[in-house]
C-alpha cells in the first residue's frame, strides 16, 4: 500500500508527506499512521494547530484507493519495538513497486526511521479509485 497524509495550516496552506504504514485495532474506527520524522515537519506543524487529517492509501498495481478523513487524537514518537514493523512495511512496498517495474532499491532508500505515530479518529471513509465512483462516501 502506498500511503500519503494530508494536512492544512490554520491559514489554509495544505501540506503532506508520505506515510510508511497504517494500522487499525478496531475496523477503521481509529487508525495509526506512521510518518518519517525526516519529512513530516510541515505535517506535524499543521497538526499542532489544525487536527484535521486525511490519509490516502492506494495499491499501485491497480490504483485501488481509499481515503480516510478524521481528527488527530495523539502524536508520539514511534517506539523501538515498532521499527521492525516499519521495516517490514517498507519491504512489502518495495515488492509492490518492483512488480510494476520500479527497482526495490528505490523504495528501500525511503527514509522511514525514526518515525512519528499519529493516531486519528476516523470520521469519514471515501472510495477514491480513479473512475466515476471516486469521491463516493463508504462510511
Amino acid at each position, binding site marked *: 500500500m502506498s500511503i500519503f497524509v494530508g494536512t492544512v495550516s490554520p491559514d489554509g496552506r495544505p501540506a503532506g508527506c508520505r506515510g510508511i504504514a497504517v494500522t487499525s485495532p478496531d475496523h477503521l474506527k481509529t487508525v495509526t499512521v506512521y510518518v518519517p520524522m525526516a519529512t513530516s515537519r510541515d505535517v506535524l506543524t499543521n497538526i499542532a494547530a489544525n487536527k484535521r487529517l486525511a490519509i490516502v492509501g492506494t495499491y499501485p498495481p491497480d490504483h485501488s484507493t481509499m481515503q480516510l478523513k478524521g481528527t488527530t487524537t495523539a502524536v508520539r514518537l514511534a517506539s523501538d519495538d515498532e521499527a521492525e514493523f516499519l521495516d517490514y512495511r517498507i519491504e512489502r512496498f518495495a515488492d509492490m513497486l518492483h512488480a510494476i517495474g520500479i527497482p526495490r532499491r528505490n523504495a528501500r532508500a525511503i527514509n522511514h526511521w525514526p518515525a512519528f505515530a499519529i493516531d486519528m479518529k476516523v470520521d469519514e471513509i471515501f472510495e477514491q479509485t*480513479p473512475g466515476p465512483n471516486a469521491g463516493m462516501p463508504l462510511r
Partner: protein
Amino acid sequence: MNLPLNELSRCFQGVVPSIVVTADAAGTPNVTFVSQVHQVDDKHVALSCQFFNKTRRNLDENPRAWVEVHDPLTLQTYRLRLRFLRSEKSGPLFDSMSMRIQAIASHTGMTGIFRLIAADVFEVESAEKNEGFLADVADDPDDHVTVEGVRHEVRGLQFVSEAINRAGCLEALLDAVLESLDKYFGFEHTMILLEDECTKRLVTMASRGYGESGVGAEVAPGEGFIGTVARNRRVLRMSGLTTELRYGRTIRREHGAVTPEVPLPGLPDAQSVLVIPLTIGERLVGVISAEDRDPMRFGEWDETYLQVIANQIALGVDRMMAAEDPEPAAVVSAAAPKAGGARRTFTFYKNDDCVFVDGDYLIRNVPGRILWKLLGDFQREGRTEFSNRELRLDESLGLPAIKDNLESRLILLRKRLDEKCGDVRIVPAGRGRFELQVSAAVELVEK
C-alpha cells in the same frame, strides 16, 4: 531551496503518479493522485482534471494546493506549493494534455469516458526538493545531452537525410530511414505507417525490430496511440506506459466498460513510446512510431530530432507517392465502375514476372504475380472476393515468410490499376480482405 521547474522535467513525465493536497474553507484536507502534472512554463504547471470532484470544489474555496512529484529514476520527491489560477477547457494546453489522455483512453477502450475535463493551471509559488526523503539516494543517471552526443546525433541526422534523398522507391526510403534510426540513434523498435487514401486507415509500410507482426497492421484514425497522433497531428511522447495503462484500465474496470482494447502495436511490454505525425503542412501523410522497454527512453531531445527526421520522411514519402499515383483522392474513392463494352488484354511475361495491359507496362514481381492470380481465379471461377491470408499461403506468389509487406504491395497494385486500368480495381472490403471489381471483358495471355 527553490528549484527551477526545468530541473524537474523527469518528474513531469507521469511515470509515477503525483499527489495533490487541497483543503476546503473549513480546513479539512483532501488528498488525491493526479495522472498528469504538466509544466506550462518556468512558473506554471497544469494538473489534469478528470474525476477531481472534491479537489475541484476545494480549489474554488481555497486556491492553495500542495503537490508532491516523484523522480521516476530515483524516487526522490519534490514539493510544489501552488496557487490555483484558472481552468482551461480548450486551447493548446488543453489539447496537448487531452491528447495524452485520449490516447490512453483509446488504447484501453475508454474513449469518451476516460477524458480530460479541464487543464487546471497553477502558479508555482515554490518548488523544493523533499530533503531527507531518501536515506541513500540511488545513483542519478546522467541524462544530460553532451556535446559529443549532440555531434553524434547531428551526424545521424545527416545520414538519415542522405538516405531519404538517395532512396529510389518508397519501400527503400522507409527501410533506409528505419535502419538509420536504429544505427545512429539506437531506436530499435520503429515503424512507419502511411495513410491509405482509400480507407483512410493507417497501414504499416515498414517496421524494424518487430519481425512480421509490425508490418501490414492497420490503425484507424483516433485508434490507440498511433491513431490519436494521426487524428490530432500532434506528437505524443509517453513514459511509464504500463503505469498509464494501469490507470486507464482501473477507470475502465470501475466504469464497467466493455469496448475491446486496441492491441498495442509492436512491443507488448513497451514502457515508452514516441509517436510523431508525418505531415505536409496540415495534410497527414502517415505516422512514425518508436517504442522501447526503457520507461525513460525518450526525452525532449529525442522528440526534437525525430521531428526533424519526420519532416524529411514526410517530404520524401510525398514525393514518392505523388510519382506513383497522380490521381486525386476523389477518384480513388469513386463508386465501383459499371460494366461497359470495354475489353482489356492482360499479358503476363513469365521471364520477369511482368504484367502488361493492352501493351502498356502495368506492374511486375510479387504484385504482378498477385494480380495474375486474382485475374486467373476471376476468369476461371468468377471469384471477386479474396483475403490476404490466402495470398500469404500461396507459395507460387513468392511472398517472403517474414516481413512480406503484402499490404504495401497491394497498395502499389491498387494504385497502378487505378492509374493504368480503371476497369479493374482492387477495393478493400474489411480487415485483411479485398474485392476485385472488373467492369470490362478480360483476356489473359501468358508468354
